[in-house]
């Protein structure tokens, strides 16, 4: 399997029992993952990695180091256990569980289990769902974006929300693409500071 043979995964959900004449893109991807195919793993990283990282980042309250460590562990667990799969919803749910347990184990390595138990015992309500945590993260991101200077916010919105290419932004601003990249780097660094300040750490 090579990179060109992998189709994008924008068609996914199949109802159970639905007959498929050809292998679904998700089945192709998961088969490639199970075979250790580099192109499949690159596609997986591009299409699923950001979502996994977002979940982990939300669960760690913005602890980027822990989220990155858990991301690596998640990939290794996916490598050990992935099987060919047709159902996008099932695959997505499985990935969430794998990421959650990988993060749990990373935390356990960092914090003694006893401490974790004591904290859970002291405050059993301190176990928000993934969805709530992600909602909190995205709200914090929106808040951080609103704190940027308008030029930086517009730049980030153009690139990430409108999907405008850097060279087009550069021509609109009458600057070089390299200058736009530099401004984007600074804007992201500023956004990261605002975001981390807005997120309560709860690891």
């Amino acid at each position: 399997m090579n990179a060109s043979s992998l189709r994008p995964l924008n068609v996914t959900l199949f109802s159970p029992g639905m007959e498929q004449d050809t292998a679904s893109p998700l089945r192709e991807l998961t088969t490639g993952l199970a075979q250790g195919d580099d192109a499949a793993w690159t596609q997986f990283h591009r299409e699923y990695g950001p979502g996994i990282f977002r979940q982990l980042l939300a669960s760690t309250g913005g602890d980027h180091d822990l989220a990155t460590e858990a991301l690596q562990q998640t990939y290794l667990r996916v490598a050990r256990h992935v099987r060919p799969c047709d159902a996008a919803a099932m695959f997505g749910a499985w990935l969430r569980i794998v990421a959650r347990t990988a993060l749990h184990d990373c935390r356990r390595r960092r914090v003694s289990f006893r401490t974790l138990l004591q904290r859970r015992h002291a405050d059993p309500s301190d176990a928000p769902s993934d969805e709530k945590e992600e909602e909190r993260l995205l709200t914090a991101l929106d808040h951080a974006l609103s704190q940027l200077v308008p030029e930086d916010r517009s730049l980030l919105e153009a690139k990430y929300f409108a999907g405008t290419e850097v060279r087009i932004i550069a021509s609109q601003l009458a600057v070089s693409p390299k200058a736009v990249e530099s401004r984007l780097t600074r804007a992201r660094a500023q956004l990261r500071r605002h975001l981390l300040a807005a997120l309560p750490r709860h690891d």
Partner: protein
Amino acid sequence: MTEKHDPRTKLLTEIFHEEWSGGAPAGFARDAAALVRRRRRLRHSLVAAGTAAAVAVLTLVLSRPAPEHFRQRSLPQAEPAYEIISDDELLAQLSDRPLLAMRTESGTREFVLLEP
């Protein structure tokens, strides 16, 4: 879970990982792919080794000679040590040849045919 669901996901990843497609996180994906390949190679090696061992054991068992008591033996027909013949046959075989009768130490007698 793909980043297509919310454009903010890509922004979030690039806030923390400028080089999402080529940096450390991409290395995690390469490591994972390499892990799968190593595990598959190991699994195939184990299966091959197991199959070879099973074939070797089977060959050994089949080629081993059967135990002695299981083997069917054809016993040679034993020649009788003596033959009982009639008086007439005896006389015919002697055909007037001299016969020497000797007393042995144990007191029995032994007959020796004297060849002419």
